[in-house]
């Protein structure tokens, strides 16, 4: 795919045809892959570009989580200066062009729990963790995967349910390791949102669902048939599920209820797509040609994959196909080898054990942050109204540990990228004075307009934010 968003022009044509947004969005379901023109959403806006033309309502807000496993090297992570005039530290150097959108908070820590990556993941992403205690060789350690509170992305998606065709898009890059695809979960922790690991599959899901319809063209009439058929099938399937549930016992009924919920969300996404405003042009990216990115132990092409994933995700966000995403760069205990960062032989987890604060680890983190910066750049380069998409986005970036070598949360990495419509003080480094890290998470969720009054569970819960970053 061409990195068309790099151009500064407001209208970047990546294909010959410009088709109505409505048609495009249906085309996404109709099996017709279309190349369309930027910019996005403009025709939906009022003349000032600050509200939706149809309703006068505010532009959509977006929220994302960028998660990587293995913590940071503090020497390379903590900026030397505070406030707006801080020099980007080595790990964050690639955010130079997006610096005005970056808020980095240091000096805050999470409340300790028992050691281990699984509760750490729960704490760092939801301020809660499963309290069941492991019985095997890991006695005394919290190991349960059922986090009582949703991960931050899922918490926002829950509040915004039904606003976009996809309530939450999880995408992932490095898949090698025991816990890949475990950083996004719904309330109660039993339903993990698995990360799409293939740019190709993500593209097909969003932009070219190959459903049959009569004829061979892409005229709206044909696509209407496909949508109608699909809805009819969903009706029949829901009927089947409901009839079957009536015969089942309690547990199995709950299992099937979850399936029925899945059918309902497909239906809801169809309805949302149909009701989206007309006369809006929206761009589908070209289909990614590259499919094989190698595996985690050899020359895995993480950056190539991440660029494609970010390109597709950025369009999905700009086109309002989703408002919430989870970008799992890597999970805890990642077994990927960072040959790009001149780290060979040992995989990431091994590097963190013993060499967490080494130059080698700093190079790895810099590489990860470079890819994070790419995603934010893509969003910043898509114009929307008077500004760009990143103006009304907030991405919370964190790892499961601060120092994964010691398994601690002391001076935890906490990044916010995006301006959330002006609700966060962007472009600053704030050095805290030992406050607890979940306060930043609390502020982030409130900044995008989800008015929680508490975050986390039981005695971990926080009820107020980190005011230094709020505005």
């Amino acid at each position, binding site marked *: 795919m061409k990195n068309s968003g790099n151009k500064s022009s407001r209208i970047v044509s990546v294909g010959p045809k410009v088709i109505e947004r409505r048609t495009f969005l249906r085309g996404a379901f109709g099996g017709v892959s279309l190349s369309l023109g930027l910019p996005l959403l403009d025709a939906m806006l009022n003349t000032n570009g600050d509200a939706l033309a149809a309703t006068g309502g505010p532009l959509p807000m977006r929220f994302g989580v960028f998660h990587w496993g293995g913590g940071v090297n503090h020497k390379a992570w903590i900026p030397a200066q505070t406030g707006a005039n801080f020099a980007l530290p080595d790990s964050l150097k690639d955010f130079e062009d997006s610096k005005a959108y970056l808020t980095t908070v240091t000096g805050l820590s999470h409340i300790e729990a028992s050691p281990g990556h699984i509760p750490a993941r729960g704490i760092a992403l939801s301020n809660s963790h499963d309290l069941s205690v492991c*019985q*095997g*060789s890991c*006695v*005394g350690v919290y190991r349960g995967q*059922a986090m009582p509170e949703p991960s931050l992305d899922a918490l926002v998606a829950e509040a915004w349910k039904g606003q976009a065709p996809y309530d939450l898009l999880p995408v992932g890059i490095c898949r090698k390791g025991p816990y890949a*695809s475990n950083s996004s979960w719904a309330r109660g922790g*039993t*339903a*993990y*949102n*698995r990360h799409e690991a293939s740019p190709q*599959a993500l593209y097909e*899901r969003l932009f070219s*669902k*190959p*459903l*049959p*319809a*009569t*004829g061979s063209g892409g005229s709206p009439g044909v696509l209407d*048939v496909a949508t*109608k*058929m*699909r809805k*009819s*099938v969903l009706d*029949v*399937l829901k*009927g*089947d*599920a409901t009839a*079957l549930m009536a*015969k*089942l*016992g*309690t*547990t*199995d009924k*709950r*299992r*099937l209820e*979850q*399936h029925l*919920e*899945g*059918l309902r*969300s*497909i239906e809801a996404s169809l309805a949302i797509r149909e009701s989206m405003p007309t006369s809006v042009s929206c761009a589908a990216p070209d289909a990614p040609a590259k499919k094989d990115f190698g595996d985690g132990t050899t020359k895995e092409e993480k950056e190539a994959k991440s660029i494609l994933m970010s390109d597709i995700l950025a369009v999905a966000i700009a086109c309002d196909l989703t408002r919430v995403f989870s970008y799992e760069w890597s999970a805890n205990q990642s077994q990927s080898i960072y040959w790009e960062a001149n780290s060979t032989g040992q995989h990431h987890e091994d590097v963190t054990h013993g060499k967490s604060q080494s130059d080698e680890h700093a190079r790895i983190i810099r590489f990860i942050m470079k890819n994070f910066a790419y995603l934010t750049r893509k969003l910043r380069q898509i114009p929307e109204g008077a500004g760009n998409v990143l103006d009304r986005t907030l991405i919370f970036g964190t790892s499961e540990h601060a120092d994964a070598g010691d398994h601690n949360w002391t001076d935890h990495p906490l990044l916010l990228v995006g301006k959330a419509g002006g609700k966060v003080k962007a472009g600053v480094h704030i050095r805290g004075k030992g406050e607890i890290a979940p306060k930043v998470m609390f502020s982030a969720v409130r900044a995008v307009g989800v008015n929680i009054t508490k975050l986390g569970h039981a005695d971990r819960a926080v009820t107020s934010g980190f005011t230094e970053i709020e505005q």
Partner: protein
Amino acid sequence: MGTRLPKGTRITLRTRDIVRACAFVMMFSSCQGTVGNTGDATGGGGTGGEGAGATGGDDVSVSPSAGGTGVTVNQKAFAPMVAHMFRLTREQLSNIVTDVFGNKVSLTKPIEADETNEVFLAEGAASVATSARGVEQYEDAAFDVATQALAQRSAIAWLAACQPKSDSDACIAKLVADVGQRLWRRPLTDAEVRAYASIVGLSGSDAAARDVGMTYLLAALLQSPNFIYVAFVGEPDDATGMRRLTGYEMASRLSLFLWNSGPDAELLAAAGAGKLDEVAGINEQAARMLAHPRARAMVTKFFSESWKVSRLNEASKDPSVFPDWSPALLESYKGEFRRVLEDIVFERDADIREVLTGTKTFADAAVAKAYGINVSGNGFVSANLRASQSGLLTSGAVMAANAFSQRTSPTQRGVFVREQILCDEVPAPMQGVDTSLKEADANLPLRERLAEHRTNPVCASCHALFDPIGLAFEQFDGMGRYRSTEAGKAIETSGTIDDEPFSDPRGLAAFVSRQPRTATCLAKQLLTFATGGEVGEKQEGAVELVAERTTQANHSFKKLVLNLVASPAFRFIEKD
């Protein structure tokens, strides 16, 4: 991977909870306790209780005076296992697609991964729930299969036979009824047939539009929860007061167990004729299915899951320690495993305990090299094992699977023999114990490095149960190769089990295979494999009866299968 409901929602008592009590008995009574019936004389015999039926149900006795239902099997109180709904595994979905649509059509799209948290895949299938994304993936996969089918119409007889002339062409309803029954494993109701048949006409009124409609119809049948999930609800059995699987549910249970696929037309016909409500009819069908080549894969699958060999697919061996470990070697190991099982069960119908005690194997060049034995010829050829090797117990697949990525694990291997072969429960490790090996001892043989497990009374209270067993396998390294020395010293293979001394794995295997609880354990494991359910105290009598009958039939695995499917534990269920 799918989503799981919390463990706490399970209702039945886990087998291991029950057996755990026995393990403690073992610990405090010189390890002489056994699980199950040690006697070898009962009535019955043959395959599955012909004529045993007391008051309504073979092998089941109902005593009205006993209070409650008073049901006993093999003179022990009996209650059926809870039967949870299965979600078809990927392999099952794939097999069914090929069965019904022919080999020109296949399941190629990704679907949500099987749940592999438990020993047997069936246990995961009985507890997993599908995420919203998973439901979407079913939709994609169903449309993909349906589209392939329409493109291959002429090769699929039932589809070629229905090229509807109108929306109300009778061939549509017939197709829905026929194919629906194959996919859903039961006849469709009239209302269901109507609902599905009506899909075809929605896309338009010309022939091309109706073909699109046919695609949607097939995709809908494949997306239905009635296809993806297999519910076991049962029906009241008047004679016993319990719930018995319906004929169609029995057909599903049999075919998923024996063929890893849906029932064929003959099995469905037997269900429709009421034949699967009786032991004789069940045995007749099971015998037919066992004779089908597809049943061979069932035996390999069962032992692969039970003996952890299936876990090798995801395991990785540290290349710096085991540079010779490769996918090709794993395939060779799995080939040996399969060949030995097929030889015992299908070629010779021999004593299944040869998996523990056999002295021969089938080895290709890679396996022979790993064992340090000589073979001649291409592919897998019959070969004598080394004197210290014993059946599949010491095979490369089993030894590599029950080991760490960098070295062997006598603890894992000992626990494996206790839990998977003897069904003894091993207590959980104690809290607050430093389990790391001392780096300073790195040059000593593992047996010496683990000495503290046996000398420190705190460790020994548990490790004595399994370390001496696991240490017998030290001649087989972490990737399953034979070696005679470690750290420059000859490897010691002797030990004791339940106070019985042995000198090497063959001695250990001989002891284990003599134990009646080994036969009971095998029956119990197979029951879990087949039903995904948790075998508990209330099924003990039924499981023992299956094992006893199999023992009398010279430990034939085929007879074990036939005894099992006839068992009340297989035929009766408790609703979830």
